[in-house]
């Protein structure tokens, strides 16, 4: 598992490997790994989720991640005994359905030499966490993360409305309302 310390070590090693090979990469990161780097969460996380690559200033699907990056990440994984997928493009489908409006303006940029990470802003992380929490239920780590982030009503409303653009089914809406109630915000206006 990745603690803040191990994640920073792993990224520093990744940076050095990429620099040594003359490779640069710019990635957009969401999820627990990003929150850990921002100091928002204190728990450990399994991976660093890449939602997009930045190419020519524009966001592009992270699937597949560039081979030199994957190779270097695998070497880092061996050194720190991390899962091979510690750096992965798992959530890149979110890009297809659309990131929250204003996402690019809220990013926080961290540079590790030739490796640039754009970390999703707080409002967007809350949106992604709420969406995942609805999917995985009240006992999931996403609910705990949301509770630790203590989102305001306005932030949850923004997150809930964005979530509904990704899943328009009545079932999802019901589960979203239950999740909001669980978080103490049953009265949020969704439309």
């Amino acid at each position: 598992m990745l603690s803040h310390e191990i994640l920073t070590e792993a990224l520093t090693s990744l940076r050095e490997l990429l620099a040594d090979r003359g490779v640069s990469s710019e990635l957009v990161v969401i999820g627990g790994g990003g929150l850990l780097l921002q100091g928002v969460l204190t728990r450990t996380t399994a991976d660093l989720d890449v939602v997009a690559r930045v190419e020519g200033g524009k966001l592009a699907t992270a699937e597949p991640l560039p081979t030199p990056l994957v190779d270097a990440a695998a070497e880092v994984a061996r050194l720190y005994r991390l899962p091979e997928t510690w750096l992965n493009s798992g959530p890149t489908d979110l890009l297809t359905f659309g990131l929250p409006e204003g996402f690019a303006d809220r990013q926080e940029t961290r540079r590790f030499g030739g490796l640039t990470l754009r970390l999703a802003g707080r409002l967007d992380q809350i949106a992604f966490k709420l969406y995942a929490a609805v999917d995985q239920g009240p006992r999931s780590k996403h609910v705990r993360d949301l509770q630790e982030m203590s989102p305001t009503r306005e932030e949850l409303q923004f997150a809930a409305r964005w979530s509904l653009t990704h899943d328009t089914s009545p079932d999802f809406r019901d589960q979203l309302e239950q999740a909001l109630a669980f978080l103490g915000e049953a009265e949020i206006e969704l439309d």
Partner: protein
Amino acid sequence: MSSTSAALGEAMRDLAWSLWTELGVSGTLRRHDQVLMDPEALILFTAALGDRDPRLRDESLDWCVRYGGAISVTRLKNLLGSGLGNQQALDGYASMVNQHTSLSWPVSKRFRAAKTSPGRLSGKSQEPDLRRRAALLRLRLRALFGVGARADVIAELLCGSSSSASELAAIGYSKRGIASILDDLYRADLLSRTQVGNTHRFELKRPRDLEPLVGASPVYYAHWADCLGVLLVLDEMFREVAAKSERLKILAANRVFVDIVDSLERLRWGVPVAADVSAYWQAIETWAVERATRAAQGTPDPGRFCAQIVV
């Protein structure tokens, strides 16, 4: 050059000198008189050391020119193909041998096209003392059975316990050829055969009966191709990363260990361990120099450098 590179290089040269002196090269120290020699692995190792010890290169070439007929070219090629040494390093060495003899050691086309003049030989090498030196069992068997897989198979069986065709092929011959030799020897009632899983394992039926004919076996068996190959890889790694950050050095070492893990397992050398990543590079340096030094000293230390032969 780092102190680790220097220490490793010194141990490698010491090791090569001792092994060559055992074979008959004009040297002073023989520390491996009871360890089965592997001349092809040693030739590839020495060629890869290149000009770092010009006298070693010249004296070993002198030996190869005089006694190169005892060397298996097939095995030389196969060991080279398996990653021991490299063709570029072998080119000059093999070309020198070819120019002084009628032998045909592997030289790349590109090198062959370039005209080189044959250098002078020292003429100091002694004939390998096949009668008295136990470590030269492999050469004695080649004198008896001819240079090739048959002699080497018998050497391996005399020095090891039971072996399969695959294990024996790993010394540098084709599995099909080895299987055919094992079949011949089995049909001649010289080998016993045991089925283990879906593999046949062979061992000599009466190894002691061979002793009056082929002489005593050495006391120890070393996986020289693995040992010398690993040392070359480590040496190259230390030199390549000399100017890099400690973090990059560690990552490079980890890449290397993936490549040599099978050899390390056969050698029972283990791998360097450290309490955390920050102490890892130091552990790698200490480990490499210690292993190389132990090999160079010829210290019989079963499980670390070579194994005792039990017949």
